[in-house]
């Protein structure tokens, strides 16, 4: 009998969600639109590599590595000579290999910092060299020194984008759905009518969460399928870990939505905060473009945005980004536990007798 109640609730939540224009837009349509937009831009950019790029290298490199680099390679004596060559436009980017402390340093001109082609060359070089060296650092002359971890087989920036899109979809799906359920439905009295029935608060919460998870799941698969057919991506997903990430991220993001609601009380304000957060995450989290595109001054913000971690988890599942299994599990666990805790708290706070 309990199952029947839950089934009934899940079914109406699901119907309502799929017919809710706003939710469909943010969770499904917007990510797909962004996917199409960025996918087209980067997809064509990557393939139209007609310009001949030259790479300067200081240090010993295996013949096999050199052969796998699809650019012209010029060797230099030291950092000074490579910098001069860079300034005279003899090469487009420089690379210092330090075998002693296992360090890789990129040298590029400041104006090139935001040059997409240069960034992708770097990513490509990282991929190739990654197999041989660990602990790679980047160095932008005159500008900065940042560490970027890199992945295993990022041959196509679209991989990067699509995993980000999935991250954003899980994020908005989780965040907005809970603001809707516990904010709007609470405020307009819809929840009250259900609480007058034999439904128990946790059954209500569980039904809401399950139907929203289902919706997120469908969205994720539509994005994956679109990626496959529109951009002919060959996924290398570990489906089990993807499922893990899906569950923990969705629940974590539901928690984030509920947190906003607990902070702002008014669902309209919480919803606005969520929208701002969503937009911020789109730009700051390195989902649609590498974080290097952004000025350094604001780059640090990404560390505080959960979507960065979610995207990283998805990239790990997609074999695009390296991460220790331990880290992977810990981040999953943190997202899950925090999300679950906030959902639990919410069904106490929002569904109690007044």
């Amino acid at each position: 009998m309990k199952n029947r109640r839950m089934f009934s609730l899940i079914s109406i939540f699901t119907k309502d969600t799929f017919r809710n224009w706003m939710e469909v837009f943010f969770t499904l349509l917007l990510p797909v639109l962004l996917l199409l937009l960025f996918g087209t831009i980067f997809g064509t950019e990557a393939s139209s590599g007609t310009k001949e790029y030259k790479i300067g290298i200081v240090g010993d490199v295996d013949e096999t590595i050199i052969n796998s680099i699809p650019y012209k390679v010029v060797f230099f004596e030291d950092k000074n000579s490579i910098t001069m060559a860079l300034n005279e436009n003899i090469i487009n980017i420089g690379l210092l290999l330090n075998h002693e402390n296992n360090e890789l340093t990129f040298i590029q001109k400041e104006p090139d910092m935001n040059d997409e082609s240069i960034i992708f060359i770097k990513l490509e070089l990282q991929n190739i060299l990654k197999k041989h060296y660990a602990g790679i650092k980047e160095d932008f002359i005159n500008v900065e020194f940042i560490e970027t971890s890199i992945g295993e087989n990022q041959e196509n920036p679209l991989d990067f984008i699509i995993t980000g899109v999935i991250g954003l979809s899980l994020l908005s799906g989780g965040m907005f759905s809970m603001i809707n359920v516990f904010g709007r439905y609470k405020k307009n009295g819809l929840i009250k009518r259900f609480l007058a029935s034999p439904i128990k608060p946790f059954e209500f919460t569980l039904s809401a969460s399950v139907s929203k998870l289902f919706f997120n799941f469908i969205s994720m698969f539509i994005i994956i399928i679109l990626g496959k057919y529109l951009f002919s991506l060959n996924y290398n997903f570990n489906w089990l870990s993807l499922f893990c990430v899906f569950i923990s991220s969705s629940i974590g993001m539901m928690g984030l939505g509920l947190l906003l609601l607990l902070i702002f009380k008014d669902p309209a304000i919480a919803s606005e905060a969520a929208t701002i957060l969503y937009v911020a995450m789109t730009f700051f989290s390195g989902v649609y473009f590498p974080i290097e595109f952004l000025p350094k001054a604001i780059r640090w913000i990404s560390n505080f945005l959960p979507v960065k971690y979610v995207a990283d988890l998805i990239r790990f599942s997609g074999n695009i980004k390296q991460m220790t299994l331990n880290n992977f599990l810990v981040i999953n666990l943190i997202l899950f536990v925090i999300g679950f805790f906030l959902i639990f708290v919410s069904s106490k706070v929002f569904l109690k007798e007044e």
Partner: protein
Amino acid sequence: MEEVVVKVNNLKKQYKDVKAVDDVSFYVKKKEIVAILGPNGAGKTTTLEILEGLRKRDEGEIYYFGEKADQIDSNIKEKIGVQLQSTVFFQNLTVIETLRAFAGLYQKSLEVEKVLTDFNLEEKKRSRISKLSGGQLQRLALATAVINDPEILFLDEPTTGLDPQARRNTWQIISNLRNSGKTIILTTHYMEEAEFLADRVYIFDQGKIIAEGSVSELINSLGMNSIISFKINSNGNFDDISEKLFDEIDLKVSKNENFYRIETVDLENALLKIFEEARTKKFDISDMIIRKPNLEDVFLKLTGKRLRD
């Protein structure tokens, strides 16, 4: 003795410094329609929602079917039907989907198609909730309240906001429900509604029950048979005459600008006196209405206020 299905003792509920429900006790017998009549803010909704398990009481006892209910648990909720003061449904669902969903929430439920017909929603069953009119929404709210075939129905202002035609229809539906054996507790601030539907009435004001009984008991308790109201157009003073009238026959006069309201058990004599005075003093009387007293008069007498301003 008939079976008491709901009993409430010394119920209290306070919000900050507002005593929303202030020591209220009442009972409802099986197959009765009991009306809780009172102006806005009297504590009707708070009382009902405590009984429905939606709000916490501060103090007091509630008995359902003779058993003390410390919590309004799911066993009780299976047996009650609830129409909230304003019921909100999922806007993107259709009427039939909504009703089916509610049917699914209870162990026992009526046949959805039958209920749709009973509540005149058959034609609208495939419409989205967002497309319904106020009357249709109200009927759907009633339909979801009865879908579990409850023994007790709580209806919170079931006709507020409806046009007179729709209100009449709803009254008919509620009467039919009573005839089918339901016990009904409804709140209203329309005295006509209580008069038309209720077997017994509890009059609420400022969180307290200020009177109770059947409609006729309450009206008879006023000790008056008729109410005369009229307007005096010239600037004369009727007041000293009314003093004199008081002594001669049993009547009560109240005045608002030049509108007079006279309550009496002796209609013929009162009318005679009024017209005599008018003729001798050359008062110009107009807009005279003679009527039976109603629950509004009961409320007015008890509180000095009208039910609705």
